[in-house]
């Protein structure tokens, strides 16, 4: 291990380079979340409004195994061969991070027999960060492990933090009692992406599974239907009229949750039973993850503050979201602001109407809000490897790249460079001819394109009129060397394409930006059938009867998918991937039924218990006293808990 002087700044290395092994706690999939998002006019017009749009793809969460690293206990930075691992600097103070480096005088070697999991970060003491970052990191680091194999690197914790660990059953797991102002030399360490903020503004299903696990450890008790969560010290500034606001809400029978008033289990249970959660942006809203699908989060914030983190948590839990912004006064990040009580009154009426309509169950609201229902969700990188482009242009190849899939395919980036309306016939002719002669040196040429130096070589093949980018510049390679290389490459890809067509294991994708008659595509299907047990996905743009993401089965081996739009031919990188991914997932589910037994999803299932929120609002029932003891009620497993089966199937262990 290298050391350096106190004045030297450590070099940096990415965790991907530093890790000896990379595993997955969760891979990205489509997320057909049914929670709706409704923003006030002010919020929806704001440039940062995109922060509150529904996220339709879940976040990939990786876990890294690290060999021979150093942990600096003051900054929680990890070092590999003296270089700072960049991704471990989350919330480390800038001055400390800059000064941090490996110091031999502080090094304490740790027992090399077990693995040490770093499972907290510099903001672990903040409730939201503990709940959404540290607890999932701890939970997923320990699942399927024997306790003796791993030690948790944790500082001295608060009582409420210990309580959450006990609920998960991890309070007895051995820990490394972290000392300040030292550096540990660790031969086997682990670090997951929950800890560096990567999951905070995305959707994380594995985290959701941790919250469900916490709930399972708490017997359900009767709770409150509508809850207002106070924020005692908002970092962005206080609500000037909060007392007035709270008084109004109390008069309407809404339960006011004060910070620290409830134990951790009672708090989790309160949210589990709540139909509506109201509050200013703040830490306490993180418990929205314990709400049932179909509940509602109404969050408000001042107009100098935009943060979509609780919206994202609500969306992951399939909780509906309302967002409002109110005027703040002053300058800077900390400003006083006032909640418009007229808006509050209107919102409360809206809530009353909503639940009066939907009462007694939230199922109706969820059904209305539902998007395309999938019987199965596949990690996107794996899903996209099931498909192969038959050309037109490189749009589908780029969508595969977005998903982290880099398959080898002749037509992935090469297109038939002829007028659009005859490309299909040229493709057919090429397939019928087995692409004979493809890769012959005399048919391949390269030419420079562009104006500014260095220009890029573009390759053309004149038997089948293929054209594609080589991504090689004139200052990188000689034209003749490149031409030979491209000829070899084309020959290789021809061989692979013909073999793939014979194997019939790929789902072939063909699209055109112009309308193509059914009969013409049927000829392509016939050619594919002649070659093997192939499947064609013909992709067109959505129309009135076929919204984006729809897939029609035209035959056992022929599907028609509808996407939102195609990238223009002149700008192939201007892709709109989401509906493409929906089409691919739906097609895969339809034509690969053999694997469908992995996951049984019933997205239309409703919460088992009726929502009764608006009884309180409409009748203005006096609120229960804050110290009132909740009364036990029989445990009744909710339908949404039963959906955990498919959630677990989406988790990837190491």
């Amino acid at each position: 291990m290298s050391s350096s002087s106190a004045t030297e700044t450590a070099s940096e290395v990415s965790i991907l380079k530093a890790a000896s092994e990379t595993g997955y706690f969760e891979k990205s999939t489509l997320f057909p979340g049914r929670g709706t998002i409704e923003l006030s006019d002010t919020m929806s017009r704001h440039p940062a409004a995109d922060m509150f749009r529904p996220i339709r793809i879940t976040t990939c969460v990786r876990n890294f195994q690290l060999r021979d690293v150093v942990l600096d206990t003051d900054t929680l930075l990890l070092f590999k061969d003296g270089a700072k691992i960049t991704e471990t600097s989350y919330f480390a103070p800038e001055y400390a991070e800059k000064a941090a480096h490996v110091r031999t005088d502080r090094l304490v070697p740790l027992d090399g027999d077990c693995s040490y999991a770093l499972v907290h970060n510099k903001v672990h003491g903040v409730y939201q960060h503990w709940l959404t970052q540290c607890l999932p990191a701890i939970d997923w680091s320990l699942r399927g492990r024997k306790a003796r194999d791993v030690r948790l690197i944790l500082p001295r914790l608060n009582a409420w933090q210990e309580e959450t660990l006990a609920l998960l059953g991890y309070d007895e797991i051995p820990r490394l009692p972290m000392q300040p102002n030292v550096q540990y030399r660790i031969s086997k360490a682990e670090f997951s992406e929950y800890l560096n903020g990567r999951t905070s503004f995305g959707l994380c299903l594995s985290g959701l599974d941790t919250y469900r696990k916490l709930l399972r450890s708490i017997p359900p008790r009767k709770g409150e239907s509508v809850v207002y969560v106070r924020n005692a010290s908002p970092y962005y500034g206080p609500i000037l009229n909060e007392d007035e606001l709270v008084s109004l809400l109390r008069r309407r029978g809404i339960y006011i949750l004060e910070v620290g008033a409830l134990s951790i289990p009672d708090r989790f249970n309160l949210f589990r039973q709540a139909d509506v959660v109201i509050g200013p942006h703040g830490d306490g809203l993180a418990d929205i993850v314990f709400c049932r699908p179909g509940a509602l989060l109404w969050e408000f914030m001042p107009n100098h503050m935009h943060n979509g983190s609780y919206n994202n948590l609500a969306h992951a839990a399939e909780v509906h979201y309302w967002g409002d912004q109110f005027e703040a006064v002053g300058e800077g990040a900390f400003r006083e602001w006032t909640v418009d009580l007229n808006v509050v009154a209107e919102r409360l009426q809206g809530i009353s109407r909503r639940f009066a309509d939907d009462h007694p169950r939230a199922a109706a609201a969820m059904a209305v809000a539902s998007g395309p229902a999938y019987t199965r969700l596949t990690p996107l990188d794996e899903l996209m490897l099931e498909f192969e482009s038959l050309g037109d242009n490189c749009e589908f190849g780029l969508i595969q790249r977005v998903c982290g899939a880099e398959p080898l395919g002749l037509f992935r980036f090469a297109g038939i460079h002829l007028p659009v309306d005859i490309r299909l016939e040229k493709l057919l002719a090429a397939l019928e001819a087995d692409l004979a002669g493809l890769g012959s040196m005399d048919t391949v040429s390269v030419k420079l394109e562009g104006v500014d130096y260095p220009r890029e070589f573009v390759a053309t093949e004149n038997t089948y009129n293929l054209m594609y980018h080589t991504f090689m510049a004139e200052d990188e390679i000689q034209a003749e060397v490149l031409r030979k290389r491209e000829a070899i490459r084309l020959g290789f890809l021809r061989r692979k394409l013909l073999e793939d067509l014979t194997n019939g294991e790929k789902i072939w994708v063909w699209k055109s930006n112009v309308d193509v008659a059914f009969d013409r595509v049927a000829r392509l299907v016939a050619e594919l059938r002649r070659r093997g047990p192939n499947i064609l996905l013909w992709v067109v743009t959505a129309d009135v009867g076929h919204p984006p993401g729809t897939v029609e089965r035209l035959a056992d081996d022929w599907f028609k998918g509808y996407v939102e739009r195609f990238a223009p031919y002149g700008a192939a990188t201007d892709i709109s991937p989401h509906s493409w991914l929906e089409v691919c997932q739906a097609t895969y589910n339809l034509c690969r039924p053999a694997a469908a037994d992995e996951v049984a999803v019933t997205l239309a299932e409703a919460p088992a218990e009726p929502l009764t929120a608006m009884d309180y609002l409409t009748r203005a029932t006096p609120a229960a006293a804050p110290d009132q003891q909740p009364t036990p009620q029989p445990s009744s497993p909710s339908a949404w808990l039963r959906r955990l089966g498919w959630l677990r199937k989406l988790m990837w262990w190491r």
Partner: protein
Amino acid sequence: MVAVGGDCAQEKEVVLPDEASIYASLAETFSAVFERDDITLSARTSARDIDGWDSLKQIMILVSVEETFGIKFSTREMDSLGCVGDLVSLIAAKATGKP
């Protein structure tokens, strides 16, 4: 290289590459494909470890390996490759299977 053969004196001797020689050959291939001489290969080396290792470079590697070792990869074999260790194992297995 490891020389293997049967007891029969008439049987043609087949020279199979051992793991070290496969790595040595791959090092040359990677050096040529990426035009760098500082690449260190291990069984765990994968596309994320080497800048510019995209699908185009992958083809160049596979073409070069096929030519060097006189073998052909099937589509399924190509799709199954996740790291250099997989490639080394595959080369060794295919070389063993040769007459």
